[in-house]
């Protein structure tokens, strides 16, 4: 009997609380999530909803307080060392790396943290520089780059090792239209090259989620309150207007979830 292909990401009742000066803050309250291989899955939610906490758990930076999570078939708690070979993360507004290094050098440095053979790394870097329209900037120090160029370099870093699962945490935040479009196009192209590649994207740009994502999960107050394709989510908000957008659906669903929660606690 053929073995079922493992899901790219699966979480069961995933919870996370933070303890700060005696207070207990619940960031995630039992999230059940399944992301299929090859999917571009978007996570939407208001600020503080728990999206980034979820990502941090999945990339092994944080331990869950309860429940379980697997990425590419590996448990994020028990198998975190093996898992780290298979994932990469790019966050918006990153200023990682060392300002004194040139773009090409910076990418090479990060490639070595994954044990890439130096020549293979250099070939891959040239390929990514070209694809992200960074060839001319390759010899410029990272400190001299614009925000948009910097973020393209960050994306190149994320793609260097061709991870099985790529986590993009608000990758287009503060980018202009052109730079954001380049990032989106490259993500789409990268995924199209291999059906086994998976992307988990958090964003506040509804248009971006609508355009890129196969499915979208909406997180509010640490819970996954809705999940569907962008078109499916829009259908859920039909009563709100003639042609509801993803933003309408988002506002409708988050609002409904908050009301239900308040009614339940009243």
């Amino acid at each position, binding site marked *: 009997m053929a073995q079922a292909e493992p899901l790219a990401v699966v979480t069961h009742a995933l919870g*996370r609380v*933070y*303890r700060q000066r005696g207070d207990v803050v619940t960031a995630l309250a039992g999230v059940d999530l399944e992301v299929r291989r090859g999917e571009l899955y978007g996570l939407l939610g208001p600020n503080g909803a728990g999206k980034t*906490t979820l990502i*941090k758990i999945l*990339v*092994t*930076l*944080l*331990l869950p307080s309860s429940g379980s999570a697997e990425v590419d078939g590996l448990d994020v708690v028990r198998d975190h*060392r*093996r898992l*780290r*070979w*298979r*994932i*990469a*993360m790019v*966050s918006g507004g*990153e*200023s*990682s*790396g*060392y300002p*004194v*290094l040139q773009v090409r*050098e910076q990418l*090479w*440095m*990060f*490639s*070595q*943290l*994954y*044990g*890439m053979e*130096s020549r*293979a790394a250099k070939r*891959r870097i040239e390929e990514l520089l070209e694809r992200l329209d960074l060839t001319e900037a390759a010899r410029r*120090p990272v400190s001299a780059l614009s925000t948009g160029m910097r973020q393209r370099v960050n994306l190149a*870093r994320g793609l*260097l*090792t*061709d*991870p*099985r699962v790529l986590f993009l945490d608000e990758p287009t935040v503060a980018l202009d239209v052109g730079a954001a479009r380049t990032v989106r196009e490259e993500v789409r192209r990268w995924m199209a090259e291999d059906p086994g590649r998976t992307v988990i994207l958090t964003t506040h740009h509804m248009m971006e989620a609508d355009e890129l994502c196969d499915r979208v999960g909406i997180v509010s107050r640490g819970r996954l309150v809705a999940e569907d394709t962008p078109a499916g989510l829009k259908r859920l908000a039909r009563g709100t207007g003639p042609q509801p957008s993803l933003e309408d659906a988002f506002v409708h669903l988050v609002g409904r979830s908050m009301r239900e929660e308040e009614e339940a606690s009243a």
Partner: protein
Amino acid sequence: MIGTEEGGAWPQLRLQLRTALARAYPRVRTLPRERSWLVTEITLPLLGTIAMVYVYRALQAPPRFTGFVVLGGSMLAYWQNVLWSMANQLYWDRHLGNLELYAISPASFLAILAGMAIGGMASTTVRAAAVMVTCSLLFQVRWEPAGALPAAGVFLLTLAALYGLGSVLAALFLFYGREAWHLTSALEEPVHLLAGFYFPVRSLGAAVGGAASVVPLTLGLDAIRQLLLPGSPALVGVGWEVAVLAVQVPLYCLAAQRALDLVEMRARRDGQLIMRPS
């Protein structure tokens, strides 16, 4: 997926070596690109050492004190490098967002720190050599030629132990967050005194000298002084000092590994320490 997740000793060793060399790279590349270091890292320390020589001369100290100052002035560079560019570095890396990228990579923090050490040693050696050569020529210091080779051996052993200690400090400084800055200041000047940078540490007594031996420079410097300036007052014999340094190397490396594991576990549990502050 590029790279390998194979276990086994060789792939792991290769990964950690590549990581160390990669992390050393920014340190080495900084040298020709940020030329201000020629002033801040060479000229100013050189002037400081020269000034100290003149202080001893004004006090009519024996000529070998010039040698003590030159040796101390050279070795001082490594302690400052360990404190400012290694112990503090993980804290700065956290603020840049590098630390979380290091944490989610398969590379170990110890390899990252080894890279910082290698890069730090390379850049600091330029400063140390500049002080050593310039002052030796300027003040006609007479070194014992026969002691040069063993002194070089002791020097390398001292650096290995010193940067091992630097790795322990890096983990501790990361743990204490913003207090790292104060810790660095607290460790800088007292160690200059206790380690006997400008005079034989025996002058402070055996108890203080013994306590100061926690910092490998104390013993290393004392041994090098004995080898290059025969007749210098010694804390203990060179053999003992080498033996203690040889124990300190693995001891500090193991302590650093343990401390880094604890920091990582605490970071994953508490959600701080490693992640870029928002």
